[in-house]
């Protein structure tokens, strides 16, 4: 088949058709797994609350108006798996305690995460820049707070173009995920 910009022969058409079929199969896989990204994302739903950290998009956390308590507070659920054992561990950057590293600051691009020390523990709020902050979550002292960012390449300036690979994780002192 001769076209103005080049030619497409039977082999080419066959290759494109095969590629199209492969693309459809991959799309089916993507559709089946559309609920969760690689991480417990700020933009999506958590795939499995007991394995992956739950989604914590700031303003979309839920209708709960009252602050929620975690991490060893009475009635809090048992800690989950070790953060280090999770596939997203390489993308977790510590922001508390201590001063966030350069990489952690880069991972925070587009996000507003505030950790405040209270007499009874810590208060953590998370939000997407330019949006209303979500409700504060309270934890006992000793927890560690991490920001997740799978790909720094989607950050530019103060904007994060893709929040699907961002998340927030809180662990206890032993590194077990509690939120």
């Amino acid at each position: 088949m001769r076209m103005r910009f080049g030619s497409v022969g039977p082999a080419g058409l066959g290759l494109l058709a095969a590629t199209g079929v492969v693309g459809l199969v991959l799309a089916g896989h993507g559709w089946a797994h559309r609920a969760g990204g690689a991480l417990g994302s700020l933009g999506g739903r958590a795939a499995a609350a007991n394995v992956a950290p739950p989604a914590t998009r700031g303003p979309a956390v839920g209708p709960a108006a009252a602050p929620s308590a975690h991490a060893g507070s009475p009635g809090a659920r048992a800690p989950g798996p070790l953060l280090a054992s999770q596939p997203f561990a390489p993308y977790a950057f510590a922001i508390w305690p201590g001063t966030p590293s350069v990489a952690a600051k880069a991972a925070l691009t587009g996000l507003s995460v505030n950790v405040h020390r209270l007499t009874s523990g810590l208060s953590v709020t998370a939000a997407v820049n330019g949006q209303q902050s979500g409700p504060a979550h309270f934890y006992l002292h000793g927890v560690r707070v991490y920001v997740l960012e799978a790909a720094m390449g989607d950050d530019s300036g103060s904007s994060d173009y893709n929040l699907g690979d961002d998340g927030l994780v809180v662990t206890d002192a032993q590194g077990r995920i509690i939120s």
Partner: protein
Amino acid sequence: MSTPRPAAAARAPRAVARSGWLTAATEIAAAWAPTAGRVLLGLVLAWFGYHELVQPALWTGYVPGFNATSTAAVILVLAHGWALLVLAVALIAGIWVRGTAAVVALLLAQIVIWLTIKAGLSDLTLRDVGVLGLSLCMTGTAEQRFVLAS
């Protein structure tokens, strides 16, 4: 008429050799650079297309005018990823190269325009401008090597 100085005479063969090496390198680059550009552009598209297909949730934030968590955004990302994958294979295999590159240029122009409107010119946007330039260059490249024969 002056006789050549001995030092200049000694340099002459080296200059000729260097000229020959440069000429050969230039000819090789002229012959294969369009192919390298085409294949590398195809690899970029394939990478993005594959990841959009297998993890659409990571890309819905880029869909203009749709909520990132909406089903429509996921469908659009999957369609975009499928198109990128087919275009990538067409480029890498050398199928209808100039036409394929023109379609790629349109897709990239849409991305650049949207990102610019949304957040202004940034390093991220400028990176896409560079890829857009490569695709535009491919639309004008008639001679290609390493293409599917039929």
